[in-house]
């Protein structure tokens, strides 16, 4: 059973999901002329709703979403993905500086967006298999 503080935390998480997906759909309506941007925004909004539904389903099943080990894993994942992303940005600055590859701001942001999401999934799977993280 969820206590009062956890219920508040859960409601806040769902409020953030709802706010973010609404913002994405509103932005998609605002930028209606730009088809590429609209598809990205709608995808992000839909993915957020899907995540919220999955989370709520797990909660209704009585599955505990986090405990001290998963919190430790999440901290390790955040720390490792931040370090790797930092190195990637440094690499891209050097690539740009020496003119090896011409990259637009949109390309750089897309690479970073994809890398961070992919790193979160891969590193979480890796650290979750380990029992403890020192």
């Amino acid at each position: 059973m969820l206590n009062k503080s956890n219920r508040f935390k859960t409601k806040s998480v769902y409020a953030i999901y709802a706010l973010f997906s609404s913002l994405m759909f509103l932005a998609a309506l605002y930028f209606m002329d730009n088809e590429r941007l609209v598809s990205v925004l709608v995808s992000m909004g839909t993915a957020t709703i899907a995540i919220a539904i999955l989370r709520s389903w797990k909660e209704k099943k009585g599955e505990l979403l986090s405990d001290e080990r998963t919190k430790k894993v999440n901290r390790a994942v955040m720390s490792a993905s931040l370090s790797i992303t930092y190195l990637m940005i440094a690499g891209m600055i050097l690539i740009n500086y020496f003119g090896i590859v011409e990259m637009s701001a949109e390309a750089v942001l897309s690479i970073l967006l994809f890398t961070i999401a992919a790193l979160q999934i891969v590193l979480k799977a890796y650290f979750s298999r380990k029992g403890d993280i020192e």
Partner: protein
Amino acid sequence: MKNCIKSLRNKMGMTQEELAEKSKVRRETIVFLEQGKYNPSLRLAHDVARALKSKIDDIFFFED
């Protein structure tokens, strides 16, 4: 750090799921604890010991 969670749990006829619920952690954490792959916090060690109706030092011990 070693522990005898599995034998105590079996003695009490408790499943990993039940122990996880009583200790307020995920079942995977109990699996790693039993395998000796996860060192619990003092709070978790206390919760597990209470669920198994034992003392912390009867369950967790260091190998010299």
